[in-house]
């Protein structure tokens, strides 16, 4: 039970952190800082600023949106309203730079620097969302380490105690085995196997419970993520894992990690208990 609960929490935390990282990754693919220029700012000045940004080491990429590009975007957005398009032209729209930072925590600094530059009309960046997401991710990461660490220790202690009790009940058998010349592995082996099966079985139950929770919460999650077609994690490693929409591959990975934890905890705890008894 304690192992199931531990593994279930590990699976839930793993899934939550995966979603948050997927969301962070998604936000990082959006223009993170958009700087709009006054209409009298020349392209030469804008390009100079762009080059300075690229040299700063904090910026991953910068996209220049000219007045004409902006008008094309506007036309696309307002395509259902031809009157608005007729009333607008490229000259009244500002040129802009869309800036993608290398790390989200560079964003406030970049935005602050841009606000003081000549020719800059307005700086927009998703500070609040990014800040909150970063804070949440860090908090969950820290809480995860503490909580999972605590649960793993608790589960190990409980399993060691339970197995020690079971071994104590079989002390006559172990004594006979030792007198007949059984080596440690012969005696410990069945307990290791039991720990392995316990861990695997608990992981199956925990993943099953997680899937039930996800299915139950799907309308809520879908509501929060409306407009986002896909969330991926680990794109930097070249092995991108799709988190959203929830899919069998992602759940398979969660199960494998949970099973690994379960098997390790179950096997190590039983090993410690048997070892302690034999020594």
């Amino acid at each position, binding site marked *: 039970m304690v192992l199931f609960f531990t593994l279930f929490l590990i699976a839930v935390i793993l899934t939550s952190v995966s979603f948050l990282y997927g969301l962070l990754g998604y936000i990082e693919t959006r223009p993170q800082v958009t700087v709009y220029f006054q209409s009298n700012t020349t392209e030469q000045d804008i390009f100079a600023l762009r080059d300075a940004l690229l040299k700063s080491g904090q910026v991953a990429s910068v996209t220049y949106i000219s007045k004409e590009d902006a008008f094309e975007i506007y036309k696309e957005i307002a395509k259902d309203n031809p009157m608005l398009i007729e009333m607008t032209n490229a000259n009244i729209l500002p040129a802009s730079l869309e800036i993608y930072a290398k790390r989200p925590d560079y964003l406030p600094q970049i935005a602050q620097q841009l606000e003081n530059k000549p020719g800059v009309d307005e700086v927009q960046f998703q500070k609040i969302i990014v800040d909150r997401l970063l804070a949440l991710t860090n908090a969950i990461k820290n809480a995860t380490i503490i909580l999972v660490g605590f649960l793993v220790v608790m589960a190990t202690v409980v399993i060691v105690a339970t197995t020690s009790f079971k071994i104590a009940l079989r002390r*006559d*058998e172990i*004594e*006979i*085995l*030792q*007198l*007949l*010349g*059984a*080596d*440690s592995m*012969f005696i410990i082996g069945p307990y290791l196997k039991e720990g392995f099966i316990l861990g695997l079985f608990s992981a199956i139950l925990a993943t099953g419970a997680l899937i039930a929770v996800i299915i139950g919460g799907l309308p809520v999650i879908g509501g929060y993520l409306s407009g986002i077609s896909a969330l991926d994690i680990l794109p930097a490693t070249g092995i991108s894992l799709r988190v959203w929409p929830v899919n069998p591959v992602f759940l398979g990975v969660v199960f494998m990690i949970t099973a690994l934890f379960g098997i390790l905890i179950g096997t190590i705890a039983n090993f410690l208990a048997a070892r302690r008894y034999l020594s």
Partner: protein
Amino acid sequence: MIRFDQVSVTFPLGNTALNNVSFEIADNDFVFLVGKSGAGKTTILKLLLREYLPSTGTIMVDDKEISARRIGKLHKYRQSLGVIFQDFKILPDRNVLENIAISLRVQGVRDADVREQVLESLQLVGLPGKELLFPAQLSAGELQRVAIARALSGNRDIILADEPTGNLDPKTTWEIMKIFKKIQGSRTVIFATHNSDIVNSFRKRVLVLKDGILQKDIRKGGYDL
């Protein structure tokens, strides 16, 4: 060859279980250890099983000193010993076949060969066809036969029998002793008992112990407490 050389065992509270005991037992010899309760018979068996270590002196088995603090592969050494206890020590939740099979499995005997060897052992101890019975379905005499079959399984060279007939009625005792008659000469047997009738009927070597001291070593002995 088993050799005890000036072996003493003193327990932490100061009581002496064995005092300066020396003897040799040749391969395939049959030796009775006799003496009253507390004489030191079980201590000698436990020293050979290496459940105890001597306080002083050395014990050699087949030229290997088993009394050293550390010996490599204790389990390998124990695989050469067959042990029979007064209280049988049969696992109640395993059937006869499984109880005897343990003795073979710890030696790494292949599963395919285990059953055949168990049935051979059961034949030797006079329990053919009882391999699927559980201990609760057996009499005391039958349980001791199972214990003997377990001790004999797997080519164990030295048989240590600690009062194996102590819990049995006279008729069953003699039936058990017939099994020992069958195996004498094929393995080293050290048989601890205080039953003088058994000792006298066998006319084998007798080591007489009293208060932890080896009092007599009678080659073809009789014994009278």
